[in-house]
Each structure stands twice: as C-alpha cells, then as structure tokens.
C-alpha cells in the first residue's frame, strides 16, 4: 500500500521539490552564480512539464471516471445477490439487505476521500463525483426497495396499528350465573 501511495504522489513521506519556479533570487544570501538565469531554465523546462502534467491530468480524469463507475458493478452484483436471497425474512436476506444499505452509505460518506488522489486543478471531478453519488444512491434505493419487499418498511397501515392498544370501553358490566 505504502509503495503504491508513494507513486500516486499523495502519500509521500518526504519530498524535495527540484522545480523551484520562483523568478526571484533565492532567499538565501548567496547570490546566483554568474551566467545562471532562472528565467531561461524555466523557459527550457516548461514545455516538458506541461506535457507531463497534461498526461497526468488525463490519467487522473480517466481514473476518476473509472472510480465513479465502480459502484455500477457493485449494483449489479448486489441485485443478483438480492435476487438469490429471496423475499423471506431470514438471516441471509437480512444480512444482504443491510449490507446493500450500508455499503452505499459508507461510500457516500467517503466520497471526498475516494476522489482525493485525482484532485487536480485541471481535472473536473464534479461529473464523476455526481455519477458516483448517483450510482450509490441507486444502490441504496435498491436496498430500500429490497427492505420493502421483505416487508421491513413501515409502509402499510398494519405497521402502524399493530401496536395500538385496545380502545377503552365506556361502559362496564359484570355478573353471570348466580353463586350456588
């Protein structure tokens, strides 16, 4: 994991930035060596870096889209599992339904984190994020729907009356067969 992160650039432990692009003389007291022009070097490198950066941005955007579409596969799998679980309430179906509800929820909570590696000034993350959110919401709706088909959502009158206490009676009567 660590190594992967280092390559991706987000999880670096330490870094030295060689491309100091400031035009001003270095802050240190030592003057620039004669014949050294910051500007020229900058000019020299800029085309290369730009290309590199574009490539990276493209790559990031592409990756972000991939990430955004990932829940779709999940959705399909979930749907299959739900179909397999059937419509009766038992341990398996309840487990699947609750995981179907939980997964999108936790994914939605971590939406920022998932897209953080692809954060870039040049990359527009809004669209993938929206797709990601939409797909997760879809998964959640699927879960809720499943919950409903299992009869676990209080959408029927019976769910609201099942714990209603019996109505009080106004009159009271007693008696029966006389003692004998």
């Amino acid at each position: 994991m660590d190594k992967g992160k280092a390559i991706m650039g987000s999880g670096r432990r330490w870094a030295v930035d060689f491309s100091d692009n400031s035009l001003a003389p270095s802050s240190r007291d030592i003057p620039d060596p004669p014949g050294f022009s910051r500007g020229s070097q900058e000019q020299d490198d800029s085309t290369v870096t730009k290309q590199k950066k574009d490539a990276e941005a493209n790559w990031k955007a592409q990756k972000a889209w991939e990430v955004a579409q990932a829940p779709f596969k999940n959705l399909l799998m979930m749907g299959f599992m739900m179909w397999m679980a059937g419509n009766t309430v038992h341990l398996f179906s309840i487990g699947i339904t609750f995981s179907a509800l939980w997964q999108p929820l936790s994914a939605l909570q971590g939406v920022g984190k998932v897209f953080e590696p692809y954060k870039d000034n040049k990359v527009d993350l809004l669209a993938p994020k929206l797709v990601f959110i939409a797909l997760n919401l879809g998964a959640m709706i699927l879960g809720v729907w499943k919950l409903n088909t299992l009869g676990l959502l209080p959408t029927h009158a019976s769910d609201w009356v099942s714990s209603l206490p019996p109505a009080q009676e106004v009159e009271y009567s007693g008696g029966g067969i006389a003692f004998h």
Partner: protein
Amino acid sequence: MATMLRVFLLLLSLLSITAPAFSLYEDQVGLADWHQKYIGKVKDAVFHTQKTGRKRVVVSTEENVIASLDLRHGEIFWRHVLGPNDAIDGIDIAMSKYVITLSSEGSILRAWNLPDGQMVWESFLQGPYSSKSSLLVPASLRVDKDNVILAFGKGCIHAISAIHGDTLWKKDLEADSFEIQYMIQASDSDVIHLVGFVGSSEFDSYTFDAKSGELLKHDSAAIPGGYSGQAALVSSNTLVVMDSAGSTVTTISFHDGKVTFNQTPVSTLIEDFVGKAIILASKLEGLFSVKTGTLTLFVRATVEGKLEVVNKVDYATAVSDLLAISEDRQAFAFVHSRSNDIDLTVKLGADWNHDLLKESVKMDQERGSVKKVFINNYIRTDRSHGFRALIVMEDHSLLLVQQGAIVWSREDALASVIDVKTSELPVEKKGVSVAKVEETLFEWLQGHVLKLKGTLMLASPDDMAAIQALRLKASGKSKMTRDHNGFRKLLIVLTKAGKIFALHTGDGRIIWSRLLNSLRQSATCEAPTGLNLFPWHVPHHHALDENPSVLVVSRCGPSDDALGLLSFVDTYTGKELSSASLDHSVVQVIPLPFMDSTEQRLHLLIDASGQAHLYPKTSYALSIFRSELSNVYWYSVEVETGIIKGYALKEKASDNYSFDTRSIWSIVFPSESEKIIKSSTRKSNEVVHTQAKVIADQDAMFKYISKNLLFVATVAPKASGDMGSSTPEESWLIVYLIDTITGRILQRMTHHGAQGPVEAVVSENWVIYHYFNLRAHRYEMSVIEIYDQSRADNKDVWKLILGKHNLTSPVSSYSRPEVMTRSQSYFFTHSVKSIAVTSTAKGITSKQLLIGTVGDQVLALDKRFLDPRRSVNPTQAEKEEGIIPLTDSLPIIPQSYVTHALKVEGLRGIETVPAKLESTTLIFAYGVDLFFTRFAPSRTYDSLTEDFSYALLLLTIVALVAAIFITWILSEKKELRDKWR
C-alpha cells in the same frame, strides 16, 4: 419498533414451527413445578387387622377417594379417585386381603387388593329404587367356603361372594321408601337384621337368612313421636332414635318379632334443656351419645329401655365405634377439643368408670374442633394395649395421635379448593435477613463450577447428583420476597372446609393457614359456605410497605337468600383483619374497575332481590361510584328459566350504599328448544397488547375486544342428559355471543347433532368451546373469532403516522359496531374437564390453550391450531405468517403435557397467572391434587434458561481477553522484527 417486533415474532414463530416441543428433559422435572397429593376429608377409616401385619389404614373420603395411608408417616401408599358422581357409602376389609367399597348409592361394589390397591373385582348391583345404602362384611359368615358380603342399595339386599364378586342371592324388599339405618348380624348366627324407616313415622325391621337369602320376618310399626333422621344402635336388637321435634329419645327394641317403643324426654336426662338434641351416630355397646347445644351426654340404655346419663362433656365431642381389643373386651374412644388441647379418652365398652387411656394433646387452634375419630390398638412390648387414634378435624385435616403426641398430620382441606387468587410477596428490604436461603459467593461459584463440569461432561456420577440436588434446591425459589421475574408469589386458596391457605409458588409449602371464624358453624350461621375470593386491597407503587388483603365472600347456607358474610384477610400474615355479617344475601359479586384513595377496589354485591350494594362503605368510594353510576351495568344468567337479563343501576333514596336496579334488556330462550348449559366471559384482568391482527400481505384486521362479551351455549332439552340419551336429529347446540351492555346478540351459531357438556374459554376476541358431535361420534372443538368491521377502513398510512385516527378513543357498546365473525371446527380426541388459556403480563406472547383432559392431565395446545384462517393449502404468505395447514383433528403432542408424567387427580380447575417476565405464565391446576408450574407459551425468549452456565460464559470471556492480549503482544513483536529487517 413495531416492525422489529414483527421480525422478531416471525423469527420466533419460525423457530417454534421447526421445534414444536415445549417439553422438559427428565432432569428438569421438579425444578419449576410441584405436585401435592391429597385425599380430602375422611369419611370412614378401616385399620388393617393385626394379621396383615403392615401398619396401614384404608380411608374413604368426601372427595370420593379411597386411599391406603402409612400409619408411621401419613404417606399415601395407594389411592384411587372415583368419579365425582361415585360417592363412597361404605368401606370395609374382607378376608384380611380385600378392601370392599360400596359406592354410587349402593350400586357399585368393588374389591381392591389390600397391599397394592389393584382392583380385584367389581359388581354392579341393580335395583328399582334409589335409597340409602349399607355395607356389611360379616367376619364369620360362610356360604360354601365362600365369604359373603352383604350390600344393601337401591331397595335390594345383595349377598356377594368376597372371592370373585358374584351375586349369591338377591332380594328385593319391595318397599320403595325404605331408608336403611343399620344392617346387623345377630351374634354368630346366620341371621341378618335390616332396620330402617319408612318416611318419618314407620319403623321397619327385616330378618334374613344370610345363607339362603330367605326373608324370615318383616316387622313394621309406627314410631310414636316421629323420627328425625338420627339413630344409634345400642345393641344388636336395640335402636335409639330422636323424634322429629328433637326433644324425646325413643328406644326401639326389636326382639323376637316384637317391636317395643320406650320414650324418654331429653329433659329428664338433663335439666334446663332447650332447643334440639341430636343423637350422634355410633355403634357402642349399651351406650349412645346425645348432643344438646354445646353439651354432649353419654347415655346408657338398659335392656328394659331405661336411660341413664353416665357423663356430660362440655365441649364438642367425637365418638368412635367399638373396637374389639380381645375376644371378650371391646373399647371405644371419644375425643373432645378444648381451647388449645384435645382430650382423647379410651374406655372399655361395658365399664364407664375405667379409663384405658386418657391423653391430652396440644392442638393448633387453626384446626377447629374434632369431627371424627377412629381408633386402633396395638400390643405394647409389656403386653398391654396401646391405642392410636385417627382424628378428623373441623378443617378436614387428618391427624394420627399416639402416646400423647401427634405423629403426623395431613392438610386435606387442600383437596377441596373452591377458589384461588394470587398475591405478591413483600418487597425485599435492606436489613431484612433472608440469610436462610441466601448463599455465599463461594457457594455460588462452586455451584457454577459444578454446572460447568456437567456441561463439559467432566462430572462424575456424584457430581451429577450434586448438580441435580442444587437445581432442585434452586436457592432463591422459596424465598419470601418478590423476585425480579415475578415467579415467586403467594397462592391464596379458599377451601370447602372454610380454611384459607397461602401456598408459596416456589415449592408449594404452606406459608400460613387460617380457619376463618366467620366460616365456622355458629348459632347465627348454621352451614356457612365459602363462595369466592377477590383481591381487595392491592397496594401499588407508592404504598409497597402495606400488606395486601383478600376479600372472602361466603354465605350462611346453601340457598340463594341466605345472608352473606364478608371477611378480609391479610395475605402476608393470614390475619383476619375484619369480618362482617351482611343484612342481605349475595348472589353475585362484581369487582369494579375503580379504586378508592387507599387502593381498595370497589365491589358491587348483588342480592337475591336484585339490589346492588357497594363495598367498601366509604363516602369516597361512593363519590367515585356515583360519578360512574350511569356506566355500570350488570347481567344475570338464569339457568333454570333460560333467561339472560341486563340491568342498569339507579340511586335509591333511603340507603346511600344500596342501589336499585332496573332491567334494560332480556334474552329469553324458548324452554322447549333451548336450555342454557354454559356461560363464559373473559377474565376481567386479562391484558391485550394490541387491537389489530396483522395478517398475510400486510393487511390488518381489527379485533373486537370487549370485556362485556358473554358466551352462552344452549342445547336441546332432550340432549341435555347423558351421552346417548338423544339421537343426532333431536339434539343441537346453539352458541351465542352477547354484548352484556346492550343485550345485542353479536353472533348465533347452531351445531346440529351436537350435545354437551360444553367447556368454553373466552379470551381477547375469540371463544373456543368443546362439545360432543353425535353424528361423528367424536368430541369437537370450535373457535369463533370476532372482528370489528367498523374499524376496518382505517387504512390510510399517513393518518396513522400523524395519529389522526380514533382507534384508541373510548368506545361505547351503544355505537353498535359492525362485527364480522369467523369460525372453524376440529375433532378432538379427549373429553375435557376444564379449559383455560395462558395469560402473560403484557399480552404480547402468543397464547396456548390449557386443556384439563379426562385423564386428569393438563395439555397445552397452541392457539394457532384453532385459527379460523387455517386452510388445506395455505399460501406462501400465510405459511410465513404461521398458519398451519388444516387438518380435521387437533394434534395431541405427548411432549406438550404441562403436567408431564403427573396426574392432578379429580381435576376441577386451571388457573393462570402472568409472571412479570412477559414470556412466562404461572399455571396452577387443582382438584384432589395440586399442581403448579411455570410455562412459556413461546419459550423463554426474554431470559436465559435456569441452567445457563455463567461459569462457562465467564471462562469464555476470560479466555478471549487473554487471547486478545497474547495475539496483540505477538503482533507487536513481529512488527518490530519486520522493521529491523
């Protein structure tokens, strides 16, 4: 919440479908249940003769029990409970090996094997009339090497062979109103005398040859002064009777065909005699006893018919029959009770002045006075005669007195329970020592370690025995304080003897017993009978330190208009707090749903004239009642006339606490086609959790839940007799569901070809009843469920969510809600003695029926088997809901007998009481025996089982924590090693 509950209940029902057993394991017997055996008030006792050697006594009782008791400890060796209509009239021992009983008004003669109680033979004696019966087992009478038993019953005299029960001869006396008094064998001859009376004025004597059955002589004479029904035999040819006025003793001697009378006024025997004298029935030689008021006289009758008083005793006295102690000597005993003692005197039959034995025994005052005494002798080591006396007390208890001490006693009043109520125990207080049953932590741990050993199968047989003993002792179960689960309670039991008992539900021991003064015979009240118990004062929440009390309602005598008696008994101490003799009769008691400021429940007592009387008589109670007066009604079910009437109350000007009643409706059953045989209502303290029943497809049905629902069953008058007395065409059973406020008949249903007896139980919105189907020749059970259609359209979810509905607002019966009923019938194998239903604290737990079967056991039957929605092929959704496919008969699962292997002989009633734990109900079944158990209709889903191994749990937790620590240390080490690499 509701949905979670549903999920939970669904899971639960699924569980219970897969495992329908509510049965016990063998080693769980006696953990939560107890069983007590009784015999009832002893009527007659026969001691084993010396020859048989064993020290036993055979007794017959008023509960129609015949039992052989151990004389050393009073335990029952064997016992037979004859049916409720099979009263035992005579008991004796024949040939020193058979116990002979004559029962059912002299129509059944049975011989039981003396050592083990097995029936040897049984003969049915037939005769034209019903009459008193008498049994005589002559010791020395033989016909063809066969011992003869003489039995008189139904107007006939029968001679029966003692060996195989065959009738040797039979003679019809041809006198239909002859009431036999004594059957006498003239000393060592084959002549039998039958003496008795016809009506109240004629004395009759028959003389038979016992060998041939030939009627030798018949004498008849009119008695001067009439006959009151009491007689005593003084010698084999002299009888003394009391005249109908109770003031003159007539001596009748019937010697050699001559009947002579000799009258002596009681006033010559005793000065200042007033009132009525009673002759105590006994068979003494030349002596008899007369009771006048509190005095008991012993009177000697000479051959000439002269009477002289030999002794006067100032107390209530019981006299035994004569007992032959040697060939020529006979003894008898009499016992009288003084305040704290009873005096036992044994005298020789002929000699009054000489006491064979005179003893005084300390006696608990709660036993009342002596009612009966039976004596037996034994030879001491110094060859002198010792005596033991079996004494029956006023409270029906049975005692054996020997050598001046009570050897054992039996509380046989508990065989005749009239009513049961429960009372909570005191709250556990700090500083109150309950150390006797408390155990130390070490013992607790030790116990659990033992249990753990048992679970892990490491226990030795000794350990297993120790575990079983521990479980049976179950430390806390017999404590005298309230427990968390509400299992420990007091059962307050009213018995026919007029004695009240408090039994602990933990082990069934008697906490206190009280012979109520108001229920004892007195000058003002001749034959007081207890009727019912009502919880009078049940302190709640803020007054927990007060003692609860019960109300005992009784009346003086068996008739409807006998005056009522109330007494109030503290349920913790058994003290009679107060008692009151009422100036009106009591035919019904209606506990009202109102409490006064001291948390005493208001009661309405209805008298025979239809007036209502309010109790307690306080102004506060009156003010509460006045404000509710217009909403209180009562109804009466008159079985004889076939009328059900409803009444309202109205104020009466003269008396504040009495109210007039006015009839507001009546239902008259046509007497030529219907006869009421059963009425039943819901238990007034039943708790119902919800008014809706959720059925498949998330639909809801609204139950019609009303406390004012009355179930009445009527049958065709022809079919009200015994089984087989009518054809299916002319018998029918009609059941009604009636609203008792308005008299509206909610449902009427006819079962053609059915007849009673009907047993029924009403609970929530359903009725289940049991009857006999003549066409199918089988018993049937039917269920009716009632639903409220007027609520059925409350289906709008949003209204329900927002609470905009009127489902919980108070309803009136006058709104006449539209109802819908569903019913279904099933065959049932057993005939039924009683049906009850489980009741739980909140009414959430599903219900089970408790059926008292004909075999005197209690069978639990799930209510789901009696569901009108059952069908042959239930849909998937219905199956999920727990609907069982329809079968034509109800299953009897042997494991679901609540009484497991035990029998509650003579079962009369089943009482259910909710425990605090929702899953559990307490069951008390009573008859001749008592049985108590805990029962969880849907298993104990809300608590761990009793034998849950806490030690194992603790051990597991410790092991897991240790494992966590060890793995954590290991992983740390590994990580460190990795980092250094």
